[in-house]
């Protein structure tokens, strides 16, 4: 705990006696809180640092203990104002220092975001995946204890459940909380999110296993079954119910008895099928096509959609009452990959793990290493996201994403989300392993395999083309008062878009523009001439 006051530590010790607060000072001076950054800093260098830091915002300290420069401010009105300001934002200064040393340490602010009187800082704290703030419910010691327990549990929780990767971004933390609360319930659920964000995986690897249901998970893609066959496929049919129904056949509702029925792309259900689904959800019974008997069903329904079902309901394309039955207010929404960039390094490493799960790929890697004169690889394979990181990684085989390519991957919009990111990585790994580019055995005997940056750029550019249409650029229409000005702004906007598409690589940009990398210098000159700078755009 870093707090100039002893009270929070004392109260916390009472409400959460199981927490071990780190001691500072010795003998009679011993305290279970650090009063300043000066006192707290050495602890962060310790081999076993804290699991989490509790941090206050306002510190009534003397000048010499106040960040940013721990110096006397003197007297006078200006000094008093500066002192006051430093004291009021001391927690933020401390957090900034702390983040330089421990970017991923859980920090719990004992102040709500809304109470931080510096709006810009409060906003950036909200975006920090490892910083948590005590909200109104957590303003007392009892509430704070609850928050810390939750944070610690979250930190201990595995990063993945099955093949589903949770990551650390705030949107995924929120999703995890909702999943923990909703997965074991019998209520119908809706899973939403753009294509490729992992909706099916969430249902298969998380929601169904956590449901505690004894029956099977039955997946049903509402987009792939012809409209006329949907009712029979969902609810079953009796012999003779329609041409070709030569025998009684159960539908997926019955197949998912005591289990989970996963209706993917639910927006594709026909109006009839929607009505029948609503009746099944409301009554807990189904009726096979051609039959009169009502059969009770025990399947838990989880529907998924990449569409805005609320909007479709307003437009009359989806039944509003069915949407309400799917509990839209509790919908589990998967974020776009572009909104979880903090997860990208781990997702890349998970991508390598997935690649190496295939025995054929492992054999190909081993053969590559042997061909380079290395030993049969043993132990873990690793992925580094820069050349510098590659030097520090301990593994028998290290795949290296060139820094330039990785920076471009971090900035890329990934319109196809997680699926596209994984495919891009998979393709570049496969190219590195099978194209014979080769491994290098370094002095410590590790095999280092570099991924091809140009190929990664090409794969990403392909992804961008899929989003904007091959050969087309997308940018916002500029505003200008004159035609000449408009023409200039269009060129700037186009250059910017091309620069992003090329991942900031002028050779690649030249290739896209002219078909030749040799024009890179001319492109760069033009880029600068129209008032753009590579540094500014990066």
């Amino acid at each position, binding site marked *: 705990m870093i707090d100039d006051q002893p*009270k929070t530590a004392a*109260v916390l010790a*009472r409400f959460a006696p199981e927490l071990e607060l780190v001691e500072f000072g010795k003998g009679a001076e011993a305290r279970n809180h650090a009063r300043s950054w000066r006192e707290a800093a050495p602890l962060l260098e310790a081999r076993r640092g804290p699991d989490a830091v509790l941090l206050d915002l*306002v510190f009534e300290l003397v000048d010499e203990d106040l960040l940013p420069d721990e110096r006397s401010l003197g007297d006078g009105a200006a000094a008093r104002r500066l002192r006051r*300001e430093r004291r009021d934002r001391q927690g933020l200064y401390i957090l900034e220092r702390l983040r330089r040393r421990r970017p991923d340490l859980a920090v719990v602010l004992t102040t709500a975001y809304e109470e931080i009187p510096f709006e810009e800082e409060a906003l950036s704290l909200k975006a920090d995946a490892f910083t948590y703030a005590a909200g109104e419910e957590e*303003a*007392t010691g009892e509430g704070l204890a609850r928050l810390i327990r939750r944070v610690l549990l979250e930190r201990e929780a595995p990063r993945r459940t099955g093949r589903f990767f949770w990551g650390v971004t705030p949107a995924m933390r929120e999703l995890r909380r909702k999943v923990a609360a909703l997965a074991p319930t019998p209520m119908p659920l809706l899973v939403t999110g753009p294509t490729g964000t992992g909706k099916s995986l969430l249902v298969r690897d998380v929601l169904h296993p956590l449901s505690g249901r004894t029956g099977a998970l039955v997946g049903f893609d509402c987009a792939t079954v012809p409209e006329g066959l949907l009712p029979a496929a969902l609810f079953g049919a009796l012999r003779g119910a329609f041409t070709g129904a030569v025998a009684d056949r159960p539908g997926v509702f019955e197949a998912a008895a005591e289990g989970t029925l996963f209706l993917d792309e639910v927006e594709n259900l026909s109006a009839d099928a929607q009505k029948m689904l609503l009746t099944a959800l409301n009554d807990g019974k189904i009726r096979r096509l051609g039959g009169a008997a009502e059969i009770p069903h025990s399947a838990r329904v989880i529907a998924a959609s990449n569409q805005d079902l609320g909007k479709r309901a307003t437009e009359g394309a989806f039944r509003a009452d069915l949407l309400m039955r799917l509990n839209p207010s509790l919908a589990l929404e998967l974020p776009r990959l572009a909104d979880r960039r903090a997860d990208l390094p781990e997702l890349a490493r998970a991508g390598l793990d997935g690649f190496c799960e295939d025995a054929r790929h492992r054999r190909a890697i081993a053969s590559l290493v042997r061909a380079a004169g290395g030993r049969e690889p043993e132990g873990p394979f690793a992925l580094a996201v820069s050349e510098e990181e590659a030097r520090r990684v301990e593994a028998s085989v290290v795949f290296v994403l060139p820094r330039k390519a990785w920076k471009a991957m971090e900035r890329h919009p990934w319109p196809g989300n997680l699926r596209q990111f994984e495919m891009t990585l998979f393709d570049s790994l496969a190219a590195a392993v099978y194209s014979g580019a080769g491994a290098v055995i370094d002095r410590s005997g590790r095999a280092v395999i570099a991924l091809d940056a140009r190929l990664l750029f090409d794969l990403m550019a392909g992804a961008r083309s899929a989003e904007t249409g091959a050969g087309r650029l997308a940018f916002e229409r500029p505003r200008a008062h004159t035609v000449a000005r408009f023409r200039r702004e269009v060129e700037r906007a186009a250059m910017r878009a091309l620069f992003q598409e090329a991942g900031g690589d002028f050779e690649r940009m030249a290739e896209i523009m002219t078909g030749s990398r040799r024009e890179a210098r001319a492109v760069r000159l033009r880029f600068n001439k129209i008032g753009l700078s590579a540094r500014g755009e990066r």
Partner: protein
Amino acid sequence: MTAPAGGTRLRAEAAAAAARLRHDLGRYIRLSAPRVLESDTEKLRARLAFDVRATRSGESGPIAAPEVFDAWLREAARVFPRSGQLADRLAGVASAVEEIRALEPRLDSLPRVELERLDRLTREIAEGCARLWEAARGEGTGPK
């Protein structure tokens, strides 16, 4: 119309001061409060003694809630207007503080009904500080 620079600065200082009061007094005066009021009168008394008599600490030991407020007021009074919404909200907090000032010396012998009154006053202060901060923040960032 643009406010004079001095006025803008005063409003910003008032917002910062209100945030500080919420932090130093509004939060600490109920830091030990449980979600459900203690049914045991002595536990209630002990909690109130801790939160009201040792709201914060200074070089010379515990600082009681009224003293925390007084110290804040000495520093912050000049940046608050004498009338209007902010002044009214500040007066609300000050009034609850005065009641606490009157009750606190007898805290060890107060009957339960008065302890509950004291508990309500701490809640009034916590909520009053929050409302003061909201109003100051609104004025500090200009018209909404």
